[in-house]
C-alpha cells in the first residue's frame, strides 16, 4: 500500500478551517478531521465498511440524491495519521447525521481522542 502523504506543521496549519477564507463566500465547508494511531489499511477498511462501499469515495442514496464523501489520510509522524473526511455531494444535514452517527461511532476504536495512558517514553521513536 502506498505510504500516505507526509504532512508538516505548516500543512496542518494550512488546513485550519479558520484560515479558510472561502467561508466568507460560501456555506461552511463540510469537513472533519481526526487523528489515529491505527494502520492506514485498517482505517481505510473501516471507512469502507462504514460507508458500505468498496472504494474510498463512498456514495449512498439519501433523500436528496446520493451522499458522497471522500476521505484522505495524511501522515503526521510515524505513529500518527490525520484522516480528513469531506462531503462531496448530497444533503448537508444528512452528511452531518452520517458523521455524528455512523462515522464517529464506527471510527471510535481507531481514533485518538483522549490523553493516552502513560507509556514508556520514547518507545515509539
Amino acid at each position, binding site marked *: 500500500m502506498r505510504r500516505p502523504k507526509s504532512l508538516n506543521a*505548516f*500543512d496542518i*496549519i494550512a488546513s485550519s*478551517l479558520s484560515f479558510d477564507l472561502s467561508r466568507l*463566500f*460560501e456555506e461552511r465547508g463540510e469537513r472533519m478531521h481526526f487523528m489515529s494511531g491505527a494502520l492506514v489499511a485498517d482505517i481505510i477498511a473501516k471507512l469502507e465498511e462504514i460507508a458500505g462501499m468498496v472504494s474510498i469515495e463512498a456514495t449512498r442514496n439519501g433523500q436528496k440524491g446520493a451522499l458522497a464523501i471522500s476521505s484522505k489520510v495524511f501522515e*503526521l509522524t510515524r505513529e500518527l495519521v490525520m484522516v480528513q473526511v469531506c462531503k462531496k455531494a448530497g444533503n448537508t444535514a444528512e452528511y452531518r447525521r452520517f458523521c455524528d452517527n455512523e462515522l464517529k461511532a464506527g471510527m471510535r476504536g481507531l481514533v485518538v481522542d483522549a490523553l493516552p495512558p502513560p507509556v514508556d517514553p520514547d518507545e515509539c521513536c
Partner: protein
Amino acid sequence: MGCVSSKQFNRAPQHEDPAILAKETTFSVSEVEALFELFKKISHSIFRDGLIHKEEFQLALFRNSNKKNLFANRIFDLFDLKRNGVIDFGEFVRSLSIFHPETPLGDKIAFAFRLYDLRGTGCIEREELHEMVLALLNESDLFLSEEAVEKIVDQTFKQADLNDDGKIDPDEWKTFASKNPALLKNMTLPYLKDITMVFPSFILNSEVCEEEL
C-alpha cells in the same frame, strides 16, 4: 438587493474606484464590482459604516462575532494595511487579490510568511510555529499530545530551517514553500475566479443559489 447602478460608487467617495483597484490587482473590473457586493454585506453586518470591523470579520468567518481566533486575527491584521483597526474596500480587494488563483506564487509565499511571523520579527521562530499548531488543535476536534506536537514541529524545522539557527527566514521559507506547494493551499481561493457568478454584477441580476449565501 436588486439592480444597483455604478452610481453607487460616486455616492460613496471613500470607496476606491474599481478601475484603479482592477489595475493594481489580479481582479477584473467586474470582479471588483462583485467583491463590492460581498464587502457591503460584511461591512454592514454589525456597524453600518461601510468598513469591516473585527467583529464583522469574525461573524463572516465563524457565524459568531465574538469568536476570537489566532489565524483570523492574523489575517485581519494583514488585510488592515493602514493599521487603523478596520478593513476598507481598497484593503479588502488588495488583500484578497493575493488569494486569486492567477496571482503569482511569489506573492502568496510572501503573504504566508508574514501571516506566520506572528510577532513580526522577520523570521518564523520555533515558538511561533508551536503556538500555531496548538491554536489549530484548540479550535478543532483534533487531539495531539505535547510530545507529538513537539515531534511534528521538530520534523518541520529540520526540513525548513536549513542553516539550523532555530528560525525560518524569508529565503528558507521561499525554498521550503517552493518544495511543498501544498502548504500554500490556503493561499488560493478558487472561488475568486467565479465571484461574478456568485455575486451579481451591477448590470446583471442573476439568481443566486440560497446555499451560497
